């Protein structure tokens, strides 16, 4: 039975510490046997806080090594956090882990998702669930308070995302909140997503395909119970203080043009602020209204953020002010305010204001020109089929554009399409994407496997490493800089704030940080590990980006914070606040009533990252060499200043990170004492048994060896070093987002 009162929560015999905030139960649902059982949340908390930290622990404890994404043994582990549904800002989100289908090689992956689902689940009395096994026929899971049923989904199989959501509301009631997969997940498209009611998506990891393999179309939930935070006074304080909520009307914006002054293009662009999940006190500027449907429906409203905007126009990269990554106390505002273009008037008295406001100008890329309607159609295709826009927009579309320009498709027809290959053409995009979603023909099947695998199938050297001759660096006055046709970064993910390709306009310390974060991961980590550091350390980091102690500290903090955000439950855009380091522990305490110092919470984040590391080592043989090699290629593509990373110095930077993490330099494996220091002695024991605990060497290791071969670097050497092109240099930056406006 759900909790119907505070007493119900506190009188749960398992709740020996009298914690508020949690619902107390995790549902274990086995799709093979149909069995449902109950797991006690309190065995994991407060040590594992909630969300991703609990997911990591359950994965470590329960998922056998050698498990592939589509195996019966794979589990989908989903958790809310103690703040979820409490009214503590940004707490409405939730996290999940599983063996991913999209990453390469397939490994443990993680993600998070907003929406109203997580809160509803807690009303039903559950903090999360573990989905095990696989069904033989299409099913969905219905959680109606404590009644959990596995029901046939034959009639929903094949439905697009919004059709499936509507069908569930129809079958049950409007109050039911659902997470569904679209046809892409059913057809095991590797980059298939999970989508919930307000278009909030868990896009990374390919969990849509994991569900597809389990024949799981949806989970729908309705709860009638309660959620009880511990400290209402503190909660009130957080509501009014986290990131200075605007507390002002937010009218629908009617825009008829976007772009920089002098280079606008016409749109019918109605936007509004929306919250991704209950209790948010900020709201992102993410509601796009009256978009054109890809399926002939009426005009549709979408939730569109970051990457979606590039579908409208991708003539240049995205410019970024230095202060976005390196704020000062005088000029800091939460990233959600930046996104919502709702940031306060800057404090011009800030001695660093000039440096802060400097914008790294975007490269000219000319992937596709402005067309608002095409953009909304591409977004709608992704939303309705349930596929990851990062894969589609940042990687597939740019690749199609660049390969076509370079003439690489000659003799290949139109890649199985009737329409001529042209990413600027909505009709081509509809055909190409629907072919892959339904795995039609040779190319449909190939691209359903994701760009990483499709490119290797087609021929890596040609389809990844060929130079695209259309990139011009604005920072270098129009000099042509080389870009490969494939914007691939590590582990089968596309680039993301890595100083080249997509979101390339960042300085070296910033892109090195992003590269380190992605390197130590299993997917693009940037969605929760956007790099930020205090401006105080900018000069040090710029002077010597590879050896800046403060940069190393900042990277470690960003990594730990990612775990904290996904566990206490907060969001990437509200947390952390560099000048309020206690914020997340205050959120935790307000929710649970249990003490938690910022240091203890930081250690919990560290612990979770260690557990993640142990999973990577035990399950996938992760080593230093493996991860440095993975990341190396992207850093061998010139940044906007035509610079690449240096092998010796990058390795020295990796040394500093490993030392700060308590890892052995040669293997990249944590020492026993590192595990023990963070309360993971049992993990150390297991690693010891498996021979995965390193011995401390007598002498400091520094045998970095030779850098791995990067075909693209070789291709670059064959190219003449281009002089600036005065025409390209003077071209207006029509792809840039609108100029910063101060409210």
């Amino acid at each position, binding site marked *: *039975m759900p909790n*119907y*009162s*505070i007493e*119900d929560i506190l009188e749960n015999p398992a709740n020996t510490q009298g914690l508020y905030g949690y619902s107390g139960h995790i549902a274990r649902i086995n799709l093979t046997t149909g069995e449902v059982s109950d797991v006690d949340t309190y065995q994991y908390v407060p040590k594992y806080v909630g969300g991703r930290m609990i997911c990591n622990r359950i994965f470590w404890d329960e998922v056998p090594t050698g498990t592939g994404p589509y195996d019966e043994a794979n589990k989908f582990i989903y958790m809310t956090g103690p703040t979820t*549904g*409490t*009214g503590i800002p940004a707490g409405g989100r939730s996290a999940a882990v599983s063996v991913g289908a999209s990453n390469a090689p397939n490994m443990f992956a993680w993600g998070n998702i907003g929406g*109203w689902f997580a*809160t509803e689940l807690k*009303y039903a009395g559950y903090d999360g669930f573990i989905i095990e096994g696989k069904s033989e026929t299409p099913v969905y899971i219905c959680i109606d308070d404590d009644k959990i049923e596995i029901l046939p989904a034959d009639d929903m199989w094949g439905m697009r995302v*919004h059709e499936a*959501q*509507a069908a569930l*509301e129809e079958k049950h009631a*409007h*109050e039911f909140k659902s997470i569904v997969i679209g046809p892409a997940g059913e057809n095991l498209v590797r980059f298939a997503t999970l989508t919930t*009611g*307000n*278009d909030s998506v868990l896009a990374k990891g390919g969990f849509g395909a994991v569900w597809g393999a389990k024949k799981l179309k949806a989970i729908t939930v309705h*709860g*009638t*119970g*309660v*959620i*009880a*935070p511990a400290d*209402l006074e503190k*909660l*009130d*304080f957080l*509501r*009014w203080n986290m990131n*200075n*909520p*605007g*507390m*002002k*009307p*937010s*009218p*629908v914006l009617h825009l008829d043009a976007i772009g920089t002054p002098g280079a606008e293009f016409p749109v019918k662009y109605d936007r*509004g*602020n*929306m*919250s991704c*999940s*209950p*209790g*948010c*006190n*900020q*709201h992102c500027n993410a*509601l796009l*209204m009256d978009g054109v449907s890809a399926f002939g429906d009426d005009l*549709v*409203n*979408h*939730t569109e953020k970051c990457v979606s905007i590039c579908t409208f126009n991708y003539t240049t990269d995205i410019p970024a002010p230095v202060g976005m990554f390196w704020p000062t106390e005088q000029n800091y505002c939460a990233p959600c305010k930046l996104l919502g273009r709702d940031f*306060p008037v800057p404090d011009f008295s800030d001695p660093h204001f000039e440096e802060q406001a400097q914008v790294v100008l975007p490269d000219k890329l000319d992937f596709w020109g402005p067309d608002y309607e095409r953009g909304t159609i591409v977004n709608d295709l992704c939303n309705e089929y349930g596929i990851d826009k990062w894969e589609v927009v940042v990687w597939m579309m740019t690749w199609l554009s660049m390969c076509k320009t370079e003439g690489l498709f000659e003799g290949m027809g139109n890649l199985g399409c009737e329409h001529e290959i042209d990413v600027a053409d909505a009709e081509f995009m509809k055909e190409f994407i629907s072919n892959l979603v339904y795995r039609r023909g040779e190319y449909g099947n190939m691209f359903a496997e994701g760009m990483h695998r499709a490119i290797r199938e087609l021929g890596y050297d040609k389809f990844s490493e060929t130079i695209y001759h259309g990139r011009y660096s604005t920072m270098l006055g129009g000099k042509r800089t080389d870009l490969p046709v494939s914007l691939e970064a590590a582990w089968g993910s596309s680039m993301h704030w890595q100083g080249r390709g997509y979101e390339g306009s960042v300085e070296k310390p910033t892109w090195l940080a992003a590269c380190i974060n992605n390197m130590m991961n299993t997917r693009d980590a940037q969605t929760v590990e956007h790099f930020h550091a205090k401006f105080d350390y900018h000069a040090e980091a710029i002077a010597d980006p590879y050896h800046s102690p403060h940069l190393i500290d900042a990277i470690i903090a960003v990594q730990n914070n990612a775990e904290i955000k996904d566990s206490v439950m907060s969001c990437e855009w509200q947390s952390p606040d560099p000048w309020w380091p206690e914020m997340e522990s205050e959120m935790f305490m307000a929710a649970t009533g249990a003490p938690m110092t910022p240091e203890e919470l930081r250690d919990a984040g560290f612990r979770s990252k260690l557990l993640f590391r142990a999973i990577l080592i035990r399950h996938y043989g992760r080593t230093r060499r493996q991860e440095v090699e993975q990341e190396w290629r992207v850093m061998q593509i010139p940044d906007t200043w035509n610079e690449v990373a240096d092998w010796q110095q990058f390795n020295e930077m990796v040394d500093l990170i490993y030392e700060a993490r308590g890892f052995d330099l040669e293997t990249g494996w944590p020492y026993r004492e590192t595990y023990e220091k963070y309360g993971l002695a049992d993990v150390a024991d297991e690693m010891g048994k498996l021979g995965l605990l390193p011995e401390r060497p007598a002498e400091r290791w520094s045998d970095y060896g030779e850098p791995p071969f990067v075909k693209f670097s070789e291709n670059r050497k064959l190219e003449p070093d281009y002089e600036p092109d005065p025409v390209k240099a003077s071209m207006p930056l029509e792809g840039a987002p609108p100029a910063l406006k101060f409210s």
Partner: protein
Amino acid sequence: MEGYGNHIVQYSPEYSLCAGCETCSIMCGLTHDGFTGPGNARIRINLGTRSLMHEVLACQQCDDHPCYEACPKKDAAMRIDPDTNIVYIVEDDCIGCGKCAKACKFTPSRIQIRKNKSRKLWKAVKCDLCRENPEGPQCVKYCIVRCLGLSDDSVMLPEGVMPAYAQEQEVANA
């Protein structure tokens, strides 16, 4: 508004768009009972899962109050404030029969039933305009985008209601 007393209204999207954050319902529950849930939110949001346009559902404080008329414990469980005409529930006297919820003239009903493990302890909950809270309507106070107000004079918030730190912020943000 004829036929209705002073009640919570949602402003038009051209003035301010409801973001679907449900903060109003969460804070309504928390400020009344110390916990939150669908059973004690006196204000609910009809969430537009496809349209992403959200409709606020609040009691209209009807002049003819059929909910009150239907209550078998009228004037004990369900009462009318003689000064303001607010129809409110006194939980101690409520037997949780649900007749009021059924009688509400709106669909979905603006009255929720707060469950309990013991059926005997079920209670009806409905918007009382926070009549016992000197700060006035808490949903209005906490709505981030200020898309809620009172129907009578559309007062967004009585002055001095917000904590001092929040008032400073509003000034700073203005």
